[in-house]
């Protein structure tokens, strides 16, 4: 339904204008091999800031190599379990442009980022989601993910706050303030950015531009990634239910249809005769709905997609929940991890109207300094 409604969603379209007032911030941590879009970024090198977390001799050498090669690098020194928003928040202190594109080390675009940012500026948006799609479509799992990404991105027309970690565009002052209120907890960190922006009543929009990202190539890698994503979903649906309630449709779909009806779905499967009777019709209906509601991104792979979706709906929710509980257990606290830091009552934080640019930056930098000092103590 939401994909049918996507054609009436308010999206930002690209115009002819372009700008140079942006920085592409690329968070890289853990291993240098996650930096795969160097060739693409090279053409915009003057606008690129590589935010690298240096927590090993290997990463230190990597930073030196990058600097020798002419890249502008922000070296963070974060310890423990590091997350992308944390590195980006740290790196924002080295950003002087009005707009930031947070982009993963495996994501590229065909459009000029300057045109995208100019469109965002023209629309006066604080945070924008973009269409993220699969770059390589060779293996079975890549092709299925490609269909899945293409379909789910249509939903962003009406729910632009569901920002993707692969790429998002923001006004620098706004992103500073959003990240100053971020929990930095890894699973579901990308959507948390959009939720915080909405909490602060910022202008959250969707730009109609495609960014291409690497998707897991093998089933095993896909399962590992999805386990993480589903733990993020569990976190959003239950651990932060008070916040997700703000988005009633998303809450009902995620908490009830996906999570609570999971038991009912398995109950149906137990009776083989019953399942043999209803499944052909259900799958046929699902395929038809898939084709019709996603006509603009139709693909022959939508014939196989229902089986992939069924597998995902049956197997991954418990895997995600178990992963969340394991992370909680490993943390050894009574308080569940991943609680959003924002309160229930929405706050008003209009970086452009209420706070002058420099003052807003100063506040955010103060927060960043406090946070860095706090981390150093820990």
């Amino acid at each position, binding site marked *: 339904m939401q994909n049918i409604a996507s054609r009436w969603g308010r999206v930002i379209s690209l115009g002819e204008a372009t700008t140079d007032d942006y920085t592409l911030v690329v968070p890289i941590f853990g291993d240098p091999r996650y930096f795969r879009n160097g060739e693409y970024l090279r053409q915009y090198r003057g606008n690129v800031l590589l935010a690298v977390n240096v927590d090993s001799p290997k990463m230190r050498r990597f930073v030196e190599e990058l600097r020798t090669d002419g890249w502008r690098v922000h070296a963070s020194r974060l310890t423990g379990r590091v997350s992308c928003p944390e590195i980006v928040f740290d790196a924002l202190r080295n950003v002087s442009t009005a707009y930031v594109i947070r982009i993963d080390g495996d994501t590229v675009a065909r459009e000029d980022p300057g045109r995208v940012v100019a469109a965002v500026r023209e629309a006066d948006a604080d945070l924008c989601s973009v269409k993220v799609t699969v770059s390589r479509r060779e293996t079975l799992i890549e092709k299925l993910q490609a269909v899945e990404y293409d379909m789910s991105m249509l939903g962003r027309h009406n729910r632009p706050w569901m920002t993707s970690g692969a790429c998002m565009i923001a006004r620098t002052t706004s992103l500073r303030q959003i990240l100053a209120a971020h929990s930095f907890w890894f699973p579901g960190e990308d959507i948390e950015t959009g939720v915080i922006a909405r909490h602060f009543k910022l202008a959250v929009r969707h730009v109609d531009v495609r960014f291409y990202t690497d998707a897991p190539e093998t089933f095993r890698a896909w399962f590992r990634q999805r386990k993480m994503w589903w733990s993020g979903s569990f976190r959003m649906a239950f651990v932060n239910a008070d916040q997700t309630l703000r988005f009633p449709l998303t809450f009902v779909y995620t908490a009830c249809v996906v999570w609570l009806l999971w038991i009912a779905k398995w109950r149906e499967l137990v009776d083989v*005769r019953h399942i*043999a*009777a*209803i499944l*052909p*019709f259900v*799958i*046929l209906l699902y*395929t038809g709905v898939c084709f019709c509601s996603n006509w603009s991104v139709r693909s*022959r*792979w939508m*014939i*196989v997609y229902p089986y992939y979706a069924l597998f995902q709906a049956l197997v991954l929710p418990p895997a995600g929940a178990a992963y969340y509980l394991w992370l909680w257990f490993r943390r050894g606290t009574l308080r569940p991890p991943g609680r959003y830091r924002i309160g229930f009552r929405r706050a008003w934080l209009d970086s452009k109207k209420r706070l002058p640019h420099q003052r807003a930056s100063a506040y955010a930098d103060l927060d960043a300094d406090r946070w860095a000092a706090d981390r150093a103590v820990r």
Partner: protein
Amino acid sequence: MALRAGFAAASLLGVVTTFGTTLWSASVGVLVALFGAFAAGEILPRRRTSRGDS
């Protein structure tokens, strides 16, 4: 009128989701045909390419 339409839809749904009925067989047939179309469009050309056929 609405009630009749509702009953008709319910009975149709009942027939479609009953093992072995004509409509059930038809839905299985459509699924098989869809798979055939998918195989013809996606799997067979790949096999030909990997075998080196043009």
